[in-house]
């Protein structure tokens, strides 16, 4: 067993022991129990992670065309590689759920993003985004992601409206994917909460140049 694993085990043992609140704390919380409505679903222990995978799922906000467009787009933004991608993570269902509860302004903004994608696709390939070939979809996205050969990441100002639409869609898809269970596995999380203590820099002084 590595030192780190030992530390982890030790910390976890301590953590589990401390899960039993001291008597004084039980006493402190005995008075005035709280109504369930005053706890968030998370505080009530509700696990919503399986909800979106339920059979018979139907979108709450998006229409069929918008939903299919989003699926196609998300599969291009975060494809399956040796690990599952955005389509497997059902990011379209999550985004639809959020949009259904979102502000009118955000809903409108998202639909504008999708409409821009279709508009460009029709202008260039005479068909909506979801109907053109994967090659054409990729070609279109490349132009939006790297306008004028630059991305904005390297410092030059980007004013390309297509790039803005692209980035807004990509952000939605990224948030949906990396906060899904598949996404946390993609980042390598082992499912444990205690990995401490934090060891920080162990190099000798003056080592870093």
């Amino acid at each position: 067993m590595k030192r780190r694993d030992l530390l982890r085990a030790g910390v976890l043992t301590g953590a589990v022991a401390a899960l039993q609140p001291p008597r004084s704390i039980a006493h402190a919380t005995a008075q005035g129990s709280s109504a369930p409505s005053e706890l968030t679903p998370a505080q009530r222990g509700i696990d919503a992670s399986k909800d979106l995978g339920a059979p018979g799922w139907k979108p709450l906000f998006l229409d069929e065309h918008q939903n299919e467009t989003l699926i196609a787009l998300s599969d291009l933004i975060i494809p399956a590689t040796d690990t599952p991608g955005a389509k497997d993570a059902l990011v379209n269902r999550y985004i639809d759920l959020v949009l259904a509860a979102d502000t009118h302004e955000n809903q409108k903004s998202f639909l504008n993003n999708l409409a821009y994608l279709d508009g460009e696709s029709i202008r260039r390939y005479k068909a909506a985004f979801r109907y053109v070939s994967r090659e054409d979809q990729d070609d279109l996205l490349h132009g939006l992601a790297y306008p004028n050969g630059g991305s904005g990441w390297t410092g030059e100002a980007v004013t390309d409206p297509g790039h803005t639409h692209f980035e807004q869609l990509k952000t939605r898809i990224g948030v949906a994917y990396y906060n899904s269970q598949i996404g946390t596995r993609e980042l390598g999380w082992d499912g444990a909460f205690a990995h401490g203590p934090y060891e920080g820099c162990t190099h000798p002084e003056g080592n870093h140049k």
Partner: protein
Amino acid sequence: MTWNFLEQDPSAATYDAIVVGSGATGGWAAKHLAEAGVKVALLEAGRAVSPTEFTEHTPAYKLKYRDHSPEILRTRPIQKQCYACMEYNYEWFVNDLENPYSTPPDKPFTWQRLRVLGGRSLVWGRQSYRMSDNDFKAASRDGYGDNWPISYADLSPYYDIVEKYVGITGAAEGNEMLPDGQFLPPMKMSCGEVLLRERVKAKFGRTVTIGRAAVLTQNHNGRSACHYCGPCERGCRTFSYFSSPFTTVADAQNSGNCTLITNAVVSHVNMDNAQNKANGVTYVDRLTRQVKEVRGKSVILCAQALESTRILLNSSTREYSKGLANSSGALGHYLMDHVVGGGASGNLPNMKERPDANEPQRPNGIYIPRFRNTPSSKRHSQFIRGYGYQGSGGAAFNFGAEGYGTSFKGAVKEGVYSVGLGAFGESLARWDNYIEIDNNLKDAWGIPALRISMTHGDNETALMDDAASQAAEMLEAAGARDIKVQARVEMPGMAIHELGTARMGNDPKKSVLNAFNQTHDVKNLFVMDGASFVSSACQNPTLSMMAVTVRACTHLVERFKGGEV
């Protein structure tokens, strides 16, 4: 204010002390007094809290909106501006629809607060720094404002008491602006932070230290050492960060001398006008809306700076027509909140470390103590006082990577090694930053609400300008690239360090409280929270607030023993 259906607390007891508020300061007041044998009633506007509702070990994917809930905005559009108000715990924060306040249209103020046992100590940032005589006697040094009626020597023993009990991790640095305290072992710095520390010391002679935080690095006072899971603001099953319900409040109750009354929304202090003494408080039961009274020989307000002063403003009598204990007229004035919005961030391309989802999450950062207008530095030409920085450096997943597809997916995991510094600047005490009662606005319990008028001034703007350029220079010295500089002045309230409005002072004509947090006007009435601050310094204030409370309570216990109360 007139109240119908007034009824006596069923217990009809008269307590020695009524403490209003159960957060960082109220918890200490209740503990200190109750353990000294004083019979305490501790009133909390919210409900009790249980460790079973902590969610620090719940992954985001189990939440309906994966911690990006748009629903929170419906009931908490203001609270959502707080980094700690999230899908996990938003019910701890006040419902903005039930708890309104107003501001002039050109003076936005964000007031972020909790109503639950422990208050903001459940979600606080835990950073814990002492103030020094450079702060307590700042007016003597630069001629602005007023000195505190107490010095560092007066408060130092109480810092010791608080730190030993709470458990503060930190490193002694011998810095003239930031006195060392009673520290648990320091947390470690990352490689990038060590590099920054070395370069900044070499080039500027300034100190970069590990944050001083109310988080345990070893088992302490019956609580377990931190297990580095990260999100303290969702609660902690091992009670490794300091929050009052599981420490001070629990101690108060275990003493047998403290009665906790939850869901008690205090509206005003009751007075025996003939004797010029407070004799209790009136509260509205949060759930039943019944109006009740608790009687006491002394009243101690620890409700949070603005709430304590709101209670006094709502307690006007014929004798005190402009707010209770307000013969000075200073009540409500000199509102402060640290100015934030200046800083810089960049990348350290020489650092080869990759992000690791299983790396222990250190609930703490680095700190750079104030280096402007110090005893050993030149007086700055553009501003008085100064600022300190909080920051961090380390490898993180690069969710902002460019492009899409396989390359994007890879770049996210490849990560980026970033380092950043954000300043907290002193907010000058100004008469024209103030709170008053808005006569046209009431909360859900019928209690008149506040109108808050505050702006940051030219000095605060100059502090943030300087903080931005200095942060960029220090990051550059550490070899940072792609440095992004931010020289904003965020709206007041964003630091969540509200202070002042019932300040201490030796002159009853210019201040509300004496050096022991006792109102000059009413001898058995006290304000022991951040409202009492004379100046804000630039250090995170909670540690100082707790030390001030313990000092005031120590004095009060002596007066109880002497039969003066």
